[in-house]
């Protein structure tokens, strides 16, 4: 079984050991503790007996600290230009070291607060900088105005400065001003794409008339505020202020960089807080009386012994039982080492229902085959295999990432195999190089055949693989029906289709045509008669017809596998395009240089785009064609209560 068998666990214990027990369970990390909210709501007797444990304020306090620490860690990464690693891994750390680093918690807390204060300063400086910059920008247009800003006019004149929209006509404004107030004077200070900057000097007695004219042109007065001195002086002042702020900012950033030496400690602290938060928040899933607590959860059967030991040690009363029929439980996929990397593909789709079956072991092989056939170049496969192998060994990724990379490792091996079968090594690199540089005629013979020469053969092979793949999917559907005691369904929905489809293939291929003919007829009639068996009245007939019409679906499903050929050809042909382009300059040194450039760029591009294509299309063949036949998704993820830390992984010595 590839969905791990689960056991349901119920525990009653004394309140005094609750925290220790939770800590132990968290270290074990195998029990998915179930929330009791539903049960409390549904069962009134239960509700009178117990009450939920909640210590929300604790959780909030820890959350608060976690976000503070994260903020500081982000800032350190940002200002020290630390590149996030391509693959995130948690650093293994011994429990003793963990304790040691965090021995002086108040010291760490103080450091975090100091760092936060610096961050606060930084954002204040940012705001100040923006403000001064805005003022500076608003003064720049008046650079040429040599009248200090504090002077708004003389005894009998007014100085009005401001701007009109760029679209308004200055000439017209000037003309109108001359008409309304002939002694007004207008000075222009140039314009930018939005506005034209003007200063108008007018007699105080003409002030109202001038204002009216200006208003009609959409004049926007410039407010000098309490600025003193000429525009140029003010600009200089702003620039000085900006320089000061910049200096302070640099100082603050330097101070933040100084916290880098504590980065590791902060990360430890972060994870410690996460653990505390989890311990605090898991309590909300328990219920308690005055002296005892009660919890329920799921655990994989394989882990039962260890959990039992812990529970016995803590002197709890507990029960473990298998799930009842039709009871859903959280889903944990547990496959053999060879197929477990492909769980990544299953998870990307959706987890299976806990009562259905996990598709992973049934498609792992075909996924690798399809990927290999579509990438179909031994050299690309080798690169993929080596790259993923190195990542696995050097970076030691965890969880989904590890599975994904292992999966590509297997796919790479499959690609080498199919590349060798079809004779693709960087396309026809060897042939082209031999011809261009050594005037020799060399070719690596494919182990099987070259699809370029006989594409029909590969097309047939692809469709055959597709047929087998689909039959496996249908077979799994029948298996589930039989397991659930629906023999008739297995026979009608899968058996009859097997008969019809095999019959049709025999008939069309001309092998044993008479047998094929009879099989087709039996299958078709059978489907026609039984397809509507769950419908009523006329629906029985229509349902049968509808079912039989489903044969078009099988046709298109099988044809869909022709992409194995098409994408495989695409890789090979593009690779040979690259090689041809490289060889255009002929032999010699220039030719060699051009060839190397074309080789590096072209093959990198071809490999990445086709690896992406192979991944996506292999997924599609599984998700649409294969899963469509039988897969029932909808399971809840098995999410055990564990140490889901971000930066470190605490290694504990087994001391039993």
């Amino acid at each position: 079984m590839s969905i791990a068998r689960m056991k349901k666990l119920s525990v009653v214990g004394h309140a005094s050991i609750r925290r220790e027990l939770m800590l132990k369970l968290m270290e074990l990390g195998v029990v998915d503790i179930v929330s009791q909210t539903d049960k409390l709501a549904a069962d009134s007797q239960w509700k009178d007996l117990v009450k939920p444990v909640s210590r929300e304020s604790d959780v909030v306090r820890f959350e608060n600290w976690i976000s503070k620490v994260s903020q500081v860690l982000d800032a350190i990464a940002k200002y020290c230009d630390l590149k996030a690693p391509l693959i995130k891994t948690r650093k293994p750390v011994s429990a003793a070291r963990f304790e040691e680093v965090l021995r002086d918690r108040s010291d760490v807390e103080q450091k975090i607060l100091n760092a936060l204060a610096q961050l606060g300063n930084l954002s204040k400086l940012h705001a100040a900088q923006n403000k001064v910059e805005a003022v500076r920008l608003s003064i720049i247009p008046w650079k040429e105005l040599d009248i200090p800003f504090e002077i708004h006019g003389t005894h009998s004149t007014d100085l009005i400065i401001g701007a009109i929209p760029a679209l308004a006509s200055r000439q017209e404004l000037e003309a109108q001003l001359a008409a309304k107030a002939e002694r007004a004077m207008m000075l222009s200070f140039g314009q930018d794409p939005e506005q034209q900057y003007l200063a108008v000097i007018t007699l105080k007695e003409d002030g109202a008339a001038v204002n009216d004219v200006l208003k009609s042109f959409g004049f926007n007065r410039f407010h000098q505020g309490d600025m003193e001195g000429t525009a140029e002086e003010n600009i200089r002042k702003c620039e000085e202020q900006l320089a000061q702020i910049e200096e302070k900012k640099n100082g603050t950033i330097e101070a933040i960089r100084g916290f880098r030496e504590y980065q590791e400690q902060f990360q430890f602290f972060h994870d410690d807080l996460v653990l505390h938060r989890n311990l605090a928040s898991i309590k909300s899933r328990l219920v308690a009386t005055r002296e005892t607590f009660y919890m329920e959860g799921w655990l994989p059967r394989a882990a039962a012994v260890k959990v039992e030991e812990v529970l016995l040690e803590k002197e709890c009363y507990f029960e473990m039982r298998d799930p009842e029929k039709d009871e859903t439980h959280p889903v944990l996929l547990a496959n053999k080492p060879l197929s477990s990397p492909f769980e990544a593909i299953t998870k990307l789709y959706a987890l299976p229902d806990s009562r259905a079956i996990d598709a992973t072991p049934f498609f792992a092989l075909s996924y690798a085959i399809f990927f290999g056939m579509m990438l179909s170049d031994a050299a690309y496969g080798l690169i993929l295999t080596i790259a993923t192998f190195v990542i696995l060994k050097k970076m030691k990724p965890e969880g989904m990432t590890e599975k994904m990379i292992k999966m590509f490792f297997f796919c790479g091996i499959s690609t080498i195999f199919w590349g060798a079968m079809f004779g693709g090594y960087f396309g026809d690199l060897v042939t082209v190089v031999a011809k261009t540089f050594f005037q020799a005629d060399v070719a690596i013979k494919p182990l099987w055949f070259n699809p370029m020469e006989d594409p029909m053969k590969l097309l047939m092979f692809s469709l055959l693989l597709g047929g087998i793949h689909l039959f496996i999917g249908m077979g799994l559907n029948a298996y589930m029906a039989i397991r659930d005691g629906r023999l008739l369904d297995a026979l009608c929905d899968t058996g009859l289709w097997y008969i019809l489809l095999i019959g049709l293939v025999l008939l069309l291929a001309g092998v044993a045509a008479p047998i094929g003919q009879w099989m087709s007829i039996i299958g078709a009639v059978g489907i026609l008669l039984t397809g509507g068996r769950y419908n009523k009245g006329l629906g029985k007939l229509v349902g049968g017809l509808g079912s039989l019409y489903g044969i078009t679906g099988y046709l298109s499903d099988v044809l869909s596998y022709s992409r194995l050929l098409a994408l495989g050809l695409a890789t090979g042909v593009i690779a040979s395009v690259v090689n041809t382009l490289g060889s255009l300059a002929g032999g010699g040194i220039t030719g060699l240089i051009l060839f190397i450039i074309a080789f590096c760029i072209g093959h990198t591009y071809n490999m990445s785009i086709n690896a992406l294509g192979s991944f996506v299309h292999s997924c599609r063949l599984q998700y649409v064609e294969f899963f469509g036949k039988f897969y029932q998704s909808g399971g809840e993820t098995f999410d055990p209560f564990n140490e889901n830390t971000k930066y470190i992984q605490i290694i504990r010595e087994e001391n039993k």
Partner: protein
Amino acid sequence: MNTDAVNLLFNGGFLAILGAAVAALAGIGSAMGVGIAGQSASGIVAEDPKKFGQALLLQALPGTQGIYGLLIAFIILQKIGLLGGAGLMDLSTIQGASLLAAALPVGLVGIWSGIAQGKTAASAIMLISKRPEEIAKGMVYTAMVETYAVLGLLISFLMINGIKL
């Protein structure tokens, strides 16, 4: 009628090259599709620059039509001897016209499927802006469109492969 023009139109070599050109037109679809997806990608990267890689992956998907077109164009050019030292073969009108006809599926399907796939990729990019963990589903939706470009490629390839020169 202008005999020069007629001679040109019914010249096998010209028709075959026209076929290669039509196949390469699939690049129109890819260019538009990648463009559409790129617009969405910039939008979400503005919100969260960390999604650049994921968005780029989705943006690359509609790019394949252009590659399929190039592939068929290349095969045609190789088949009629325009690539490599041999020089253009003598082709009959029928041969040239057949190659032109064979190039139509990949060229035409490529244009429209590229655009459609670009739109799907754009919405898949929107999907990852909200749920980055669901990128595989977005990719599969996008790949559904590509199926038809693959079929166009396949049929063009089989036709060209079947034409005897």
